[in-house]
């Protein structure tokens, strides 16, 4: 089973663009991919969802499996965050981004779909174990 991780930016983008979400679900079905995320993203996405979009957010999250956060993943996320901050002047990944990257490593997911290319490219370089697809690059202009 292949898995693809989503960050908060990607979830927000997919919520705004339902054609893109339909396309992603089509690829998920054809390729046998499972969508996943970190619990930190779940909190950020559902907790920060505007009142009018809450049920739509809940519906979208029902297609995303959620991992766990423990000390080991927290420590790995901190290491990746430090390495990204040291290695790039452009990127400033936050704790939630770093937890997504650590979750990708733990699950052996090799693709993270992100709404924030700079930060995730820096995390991917620090990790060397996953690729980043920027949602903006695949959504039609």
């Amino acid at each position, binding site marked *: 089973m292949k898995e693809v991780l989503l960050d908060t930016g990607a979830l927000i983008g997919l919520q705004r663009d339902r*054609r893109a979400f339909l396309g992603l679900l089509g*690829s998920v079905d054809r390729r046998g991919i499972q969508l996943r995320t970190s619990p930190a993203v779940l909190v950020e996405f559902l907790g920060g969802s505007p009142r009018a979009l809450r049920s739509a957010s809940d519906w979208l999250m029902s297609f995303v499996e959620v991992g766990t956060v423990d000390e080991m993943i927290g420590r790995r996320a901190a290491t990746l965050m430090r390495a990204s901050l040291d290695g790039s002047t452009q990127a400033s990944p936050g704790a939630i981004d770093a937890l997504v990257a650590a979750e990708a490593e733990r699950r052996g997911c090799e693709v993270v779909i992100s709404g924030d290319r700079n930060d995730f490219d820096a995390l991917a370089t620090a990790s060397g174990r996953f690729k980043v697809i920027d949602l903006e690059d695949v959504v039609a202009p």
Partner: protein
Amino acid sequence: MATKRTRPTRPKESPYEKVSATLERPVLREIREKSANVSEFLNEAAKDKLYFERVREGIKQLRRQGVREDPEFRRRLEEALDEADAWRRERSRAPQ
């Protein structure tokens, strides 16, 4: 008053054999571990099946709401996923 006679019923044949055996502890442990793995595998398979049923239901729901797939998005996403697959294959071939 006449009593109703009931026909004696034949015991149904079970498809399973009842076997009792005495096993050494290591053998018993191995059997338990292996059967636990099988049930874990079956649980995972059932979970995956439910996930993809949910995905197909989501696709139907969106289509019912009039959402149409964007062929350009699909092409670009498939390309990006193919690139990621190629990268993964390359990475798995590279010496660790």
